[in-house]
């Protein structure tokens, strides 16, 4: 059965003609990718502003009187949920997944372009529902991003009326959107690879996105289940999660429900979610590092296996988020064990990235700087994960700023470093323009050093026992005055980093407007997306004939070859040698 994504098309291509079919109701994966990324970044800016407001309150309590405790909790909740689900998941899979999968495997588009379009519009709908909760009576939910019952839907919690319902509805719609997109990504990778593109010749970006999508397909149903059951509790008065209790002096009309059940369901989604964000980041950063270090990726097969292993393991570690829920100590032992095992494939990946750089011909471009910044922040956040994975260390540190520092380092800053690395790396292909190198470097150093200034001191606050989630610390015996000063300093750094992101947007818009025209392959990369006939690629990506792939995506610095890279689609007999008499032979590294 032949169909568009894997077929040569000798006839003239039928490009969409009108503005609406080309840019609004588009079925072109590249346009959908930009729609996804644009929406995700826009909603991410909202979450960034919310974090700035939180830091204003934490750094300078009693100064900004417009921030009430209820609003503070709403900022916390919306910041967390937007960043994790609506920004990172959507940007990595909907944005980069959509853009890179067909281009890197040599397909014309996703196998179900219409479903792909639908996926974006459902995602947009979920974002609009979520944003609507800012404007309903009571405001958005302030239950914390984990939305734990009973307090999430109990009177007295900020946004316990319309806010939480809109949040649950938005999540359910998001899951539907993700499932439509995810079916597409997985089927496309399995079915639409071009001639010669075996699974083990795929760039690691595709591997990361592919496995993360499978994780998402199996993890998001847990979120859906918990959202549906909690909506039932709220709207229909069932008692799935709601125990009998007295709230604000009155006996509520619930009985027998289990809040712990919600925690299990939520974290069965919540932990794989970490890797839904991390695996695409691992993949993208591998490609950026290899390209700019001019070295083949070290241990390609191990990198693939590690991605698959991490994906599998991520489903059996969820309860390490629940050590303090009063669970059986033997469960704690089991989950600590599985959690620490994940460190092995993850460490393999880190060693391989570092070894890729070893004796490489490193070009310190902006994407490379961000990729190397990722290695730092990820090692940092990963190591503190080893602390928290142990039950005995987690118990005192849980609910302190140490946890905040850990997860922001590992799944906040690190993926964002990769997001920027990837945007700068693929921007010339996406837009056809070069970005401003100088502004990019300012953006990198400010963000990299700035985020360290934010999160490094937070570990110390955590050791002091400063609790997270508190609106104000008040006066206690164990929190010294210096902690307040540290908090103020962190806030200054946070606001600096937040404002600095303007440099990034200026760079993007300035480059789109008046940037230098980009070379089709400005980084001398080998993978297929750089070898399209047009830059940016046109509808259908490849002209009349699909590319044929002869090798893996990491053929850098092969001995005897004139250039230091061999593109994936260059036939072996056309490879230029340093010594014209010599014949090119694919070599073992």
């Amino acid at each position, binding site marked *: 059965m032949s169909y568009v994504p894997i077929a040569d098309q000798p006839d003239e291509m039928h490009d969409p003609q009108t503005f609406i079919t080309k840019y609004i109701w588009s079925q072109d994966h590249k346009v959908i990718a930009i729609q996804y990324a644009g929406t995700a970044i826009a909603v991410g800016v909202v979450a960034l502003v919310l974090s700035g407001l939180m830091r204003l309150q934490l750094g300078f309590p009693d100064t900004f009187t417009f921030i009430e405790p209820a609003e503070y909790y709403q900022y916390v909740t919306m910041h967390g949920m937007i960043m994790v689900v609506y920004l990172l998941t959507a940007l990595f899979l909907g944005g980069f997944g959509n853009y890179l999968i067909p281009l890197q495997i040599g397909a014309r588009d996703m196998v179900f372009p219409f479903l792909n379009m639908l996926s974006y519009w459902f995602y947009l709908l979920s974002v609009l529902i979520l944003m609507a909760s800012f404007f309903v009576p009571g405001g958005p939910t302030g239950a914390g991003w984990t939305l734990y019952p009973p307090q999430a839907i109990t009177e007295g919690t900020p946004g316990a009326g319309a806010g939480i319902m809109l949040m649950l509805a938005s999540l359910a719609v998001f899951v539907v959107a993700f499932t439509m997109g995810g079916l597409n990504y997985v089927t496309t990778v399995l079915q639409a690879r071009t001639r010669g593109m075996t699974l083990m010749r795929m760039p690691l970006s595709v591997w990361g996105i592919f496995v993360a999508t499978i994780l998402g397909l199996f993890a998001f149903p847990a979120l859906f289940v918990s959202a549906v059951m909690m909506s039932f509790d709220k709207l*229909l008065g069932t008692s799935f999660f709601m125990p009998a209790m007295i709230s604000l002096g009155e006996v509520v009309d619930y009985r027998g429900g289990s809040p712990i059940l919600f925690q299990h369901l939520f974290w069965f989604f919540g932990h794989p979610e970490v890797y839904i964000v991390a695996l695409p980041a691992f993949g993208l950063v591998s490609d950026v590092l290899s390209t700019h270090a001019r070295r083949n990726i070290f241990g390609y097969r191990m990198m693939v296996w590690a991605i698959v292993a991490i994906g599998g393991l991520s489903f059996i570690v969820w309860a390490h988020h629940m050590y303090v829920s009063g669970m059986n100590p033997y469960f704690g032992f089991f989950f600590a064990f599985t959690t620490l095992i994940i460190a092995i494939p993850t460490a393999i990946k880190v060693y391989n990235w570092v070894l890729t750089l070893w004796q490489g011909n490193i070009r310190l471009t902006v994407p490379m700087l961000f990729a190397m910044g990722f290695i730092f922040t990820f090692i940092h956040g990963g190591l503190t994960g080893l602390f928290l994975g142990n039950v005995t260390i987690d118990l005192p540190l849980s609910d302190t700023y140490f946890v905040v520092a850990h997860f922001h380092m590992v799944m906040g800053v690190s993926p964002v470093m990769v997001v920027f690395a990837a945007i700068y790396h693929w921007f010339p292909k996406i837009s056809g323009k070069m970005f401003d190198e100088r502004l990019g470097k300012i953006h990198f150093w400010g963000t990299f050093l700035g985020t360290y200034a934010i999160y490094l001191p937070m570990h110390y606050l955590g050791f002091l026992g400063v609790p997270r989630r508190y609106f104000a610390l008040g006066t206690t015996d164990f929190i010294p005055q210096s902690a307040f000063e540290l908090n103020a300093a962190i806030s200054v750094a946070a606001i600096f980093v937040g404002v600095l992101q303007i440099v990034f947007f200026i760079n993007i818009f300035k480059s789109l407007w008046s940037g230098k025209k980009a070379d089709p392959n400005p980084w001398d990369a080998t993978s297929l997306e750089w070898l399209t006939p047009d830059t940016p690629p046109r509808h259908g990506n490849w002209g009349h004939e699909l590319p044929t792939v002869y090798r893996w995506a990491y053929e850098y610095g092969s001995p005897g070859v004139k250039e230091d890279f061999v593109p994936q689609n260059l036939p072996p007999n056309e490879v230029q040698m340093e010594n014209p008499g010599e014949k090119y032979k694919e070599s073992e590294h």
Partner: protein
Amino acid sequence: MSFFRSLLLKPWNYEGQETSAIAGDMAGLGSAPQQIALVIFLSVVTVLFSLFGVAYFMRMAVDTSSPLFCGAGYWEVLNEPKILWLNTGILIFTSGVIEWTRREAGLGRGGLVKLGLVFGAVLTLAFLYGQSVAWRELNQSGYMVNSNAATSFFYLLTGLHALHVIGGLWVWFSTTATAFFDETDPVRLSSTIKLCAIYWHFLLILWVLLFVLFLNT
């Protein structure tokens, strides 16, 4: 080549794989992408209902003696409406009819296919009607969705199952419309019916599992 065996390939080692890889891997898994997508989708639905199943057991196991739960889990054993047996029979019969339609479509017998399409739709609607009768019976005997946890789960799970059936019917109706008014591509029609058949069999197995779950708890 199996997925796991291909993971062992060394992509940088070209001895003997250059030509075979170029010719061999393009067909992917050898099925239509729609069918692969359907199988993936059904595994997602399986995970969804398994999680509901886990939640069902965990909620049922809420320790009634624990002070945490104020003495009671409020789980009353549900007396399932008898009509569910009839509905199960109808659904089994529907699956049979749809399987028969799939075979006829494969053989290219257009008239019988149309008959099967209409008959399958009528039976599926009958199943949905039967489920709504079961709901009404429960309602009339005073078991509302919030009466106790067992009835909550009953309404929730049967409702979700019915929604999946309705989703399938939507595709079934459009296939029927294609068969009657736009019969240009019998191969395409037959592959759509094949996908529907897989979906209906899946929903039947799912329903039987749910029914067994309800009956035994």
